[in-house]
């Protein structure tokens, strides 16, 4: 509609449309509502069915929920940031795994600080390669990050042969961060809260954040305004690599046994968390706050399915179905993709 009168009176639109628009601008509110609904369902429907009595919301349960949602939400940050530019980072899972594996295997050899530094550097390198491919060579992000992810997987296996005899060591402070509790809440929050604040600030209050939205909305308009998009892509994917490596280190402290598959299963849920959180895979729209709630929702669903003692296959299938339903419902309400 190009009619000016319609704009002028946009505020008086029908209730449902208004609600849809409100939710579209504030996707976090219905998500939180949905999360609370799920938690209720967990305690008053699923628990009685399985155990014969209603459960109670214990500090332990909340602690566990948050603890396992943190690495997922951090990887979801990689997806939110790249999706803003209509991209995606499919190498985030393997980057996290590599960072964890490298850190655990190098710590006995060169000490913890060096190992952590090299682990983070691995994330930066993969990210820079991604950024170069997407921003300079203009490979589609899906293909680019899939490719670098596979190459990185191969490299990790080669690397494993060299360090097979050295044994592993999980740095003490990572264990503290991953498994410890302070005042009933997981220590991971000491890392995650500043991290989340930084990402939210970056997206909303910096020029870089604005350029991410701009590139996703209309890259030509950005170019016209003098934006060199390759710079933004390079920085973006490097940042995504750093975040993934950081998430990997935290996850290592949580699981305490490095493996070649450690964080890989978190990749697709991280994409799901971003999408559920209201981030458009077509770019230009997204919210990290939504992705955090999305990660919590996924964790609750996972807990529920575990409690129901579903066979692994059914669990995965149901998981996929729920993601589709939530997304469809969300699109339905807000009228956005």
């Amino acid at each position: 509609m190009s009619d000016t009168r319609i704009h002028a009176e946009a505020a008086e639109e029908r209730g449902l449309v208004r609600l849809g628009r409100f939710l579209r601008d504030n996707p976090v509110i219905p998500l939180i509502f949905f999360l609370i609904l799920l938690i209720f369902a967990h305690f008053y429907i699923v628990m009685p069915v399985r155990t014969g009595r209603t459960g109670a919301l214990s500090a332990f349960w909340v602690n566990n929920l948050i603890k396992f949602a943190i690495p997922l939400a951090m990887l979801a940050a990689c997806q939110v940031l790249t999706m803003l530019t209509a991209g995606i980072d499919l190498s985030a899972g393997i980057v996290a795994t590599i960072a964890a594996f490298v850190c655990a295997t190098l710590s006995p050899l060169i000490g913890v600080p060096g190992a952590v530094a090299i682990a983070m550097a691995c994330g930066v390198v993969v990210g820079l390669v991604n950024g170069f491919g997407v921003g300079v060579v203009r490979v589609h992000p899906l293909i680019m990050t899939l490719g670098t992810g596979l190459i990185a997987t191969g490299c990790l296996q080669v690397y494993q042969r060299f360090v097979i005899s050295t044994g592993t060591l999980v740095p003490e402070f990572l264990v503290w961060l991953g498994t410890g509790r302070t005042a009933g809440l997981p220590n991971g929050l000491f890392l995650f809260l500043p991290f989340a604040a930084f990402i939210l600030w970056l997206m909303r209050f910096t020029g870089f954040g604005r350029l991410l939205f701009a590139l996703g909305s209309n890259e030509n308009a950005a170019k016209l305004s003098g934006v060199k998009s390759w710079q933004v892509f390079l920085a973006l994917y490097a940042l995504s690599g750093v975040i993934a490596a950081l998430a990997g280190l935290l996850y290592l402290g949580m699981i305490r046994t490095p493996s070649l598959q450690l964080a890989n299963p978190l990749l697709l849920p991280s994409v799901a968390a971003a999408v559920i959180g209201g981030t458009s895979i077509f770019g230009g729209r997204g919210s990290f706050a939504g992705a955090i709630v999305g990660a919590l929702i996924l964790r609750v669903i996972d807990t529920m399915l575990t409690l129901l003692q579903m066979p692994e296959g059914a669990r995965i299938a149901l998981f996929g179905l729920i993601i589709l339903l939530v997304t469809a419902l969300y699109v339905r309400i807000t009228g956005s993709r």
Partner: protein
Amino acid sequence: MSRTEPQALLDATGVAKSFGAVRALTDASLHVSPGEVVALMGANGAGKSTFVKIITGALRPDAGTVLIRGKPAQVGSPAQARRSGLVPVYQEPSLIPDLDVADNLRLGDTPVEPFRHWVSELGIEGLRLDHMIADLPLATLRILDLARAIAAEPDVLMLDEMTAALPTDLVEKVLKTVRGQADEGRGVIYISHRFTEIQELCDSATVLRDGRTVGDLKIEAGAEEQVVELMLGAKIDLGKAAARARHVNEGAPRLSARGLAVAPKVTDVSFDLYPGEVLGVVALEGQGQDEVFEVLSGFRKATGGTLEVDGDAVSFNHPSQAIAKGLTFVPGDRAEALMRERSVRENIALPFSARLRDWGPLKGRQERARVAHAIEKLQIDTRAQGEVQRLSGGNQQKVTIGRWLAHGVETLLLFDPTRGIDVRTKRQIYPLVRELAEQGAAVLYYTSELEEVPLACDRAVVIFNGRVVDVVDAADADEQTLMRAAYGLTEAKAAS
């Protein structure tokens, strides 16, 4: 069933449509008799596009009737409207880019022979049916759309800004053909911003304002004034340039092009653009002006010639380099320049964050002040808070100009800034451009509407076939002179 007038082909009465609480149409009507060409007119926001959507079946009216040949039109869908005898041709080409011409015809059940006939009648030679649509220029696509519509032998043809992207020679053919269709007894609804064409082609005009039909009038001498008056609800005059002191160029030129070439289209473009001057560019469609603007704005490299900004030779690889030299570009297509889903403020402030050193924290207060200044200066209607796509076309165009106003203007490259926007907004843009020049900016102004040249420009360069063939004094150039120049008719003089 006897009526005094011949049965109307299309008879829409009392059409109303609301979107939620917003009344887009309250009482719109339109009558098209056999053999009649009716101009449907209205400023942006008058409800024209909603009305068109209802007539063509894309929207359902809340009240009122649409009769085609006296029968209630079963306009549930565009396909049904087509079957019932109304065939629209929209501004955007409706052919599928990844198919060839023949496949596109097959999709619409268009008979091939009549189609070929009309294509050549409309002045396109050598069209092969195995051409891919994506490879054809926009002007050709519009002609194909029109030929396809005529080949379907509709009762009523609806043409929306049919001539907008067409070079002048094709426009004449289109007008002639459409007139011919009417003379055979068809009805035509003609939507256009161009008064000259309406005067040449149409029998009557139906004017919409604020969602209702405010007048039906015969097109005759002086109708233009009347139509504008009806459209705006107030008397305006478009055809007079405001009296102003003649600008005299002095000092060094801001921008100086010598023998600029972009293979294969542009061969020799030279001009000087001085600070304080609005230099018009007069050219028919596709004479190389697009390429020249792309070179100046850093989107494309020249293949020959030199470009100097303030005396320094430059060659841009990226728009950021042009911007660093003060050359800022407003493209003809608003969709290219705007982030539709982002706010007015973000759209205007986009260049503020472009450079690497501006990636840090936003300077909120400074940004707000500059954006507010641009919005006020351009009188952008921002009652529609939020996304730019909720603004009208004219206001969107203002946002693209406002972006550079907020950034600071040294040299402004305007490529057809008034394309497809309403008269009122146009009349706000000319004085703004003048004012920018008076404050020391240099403005290069290409327009596809020749009558704008004396209104906005000091001088004008005429580009024909990739070369600058003439430089005219814009203030006393009448349309006829410009037209002759644009057609290359003064080339002999310039060459001698």
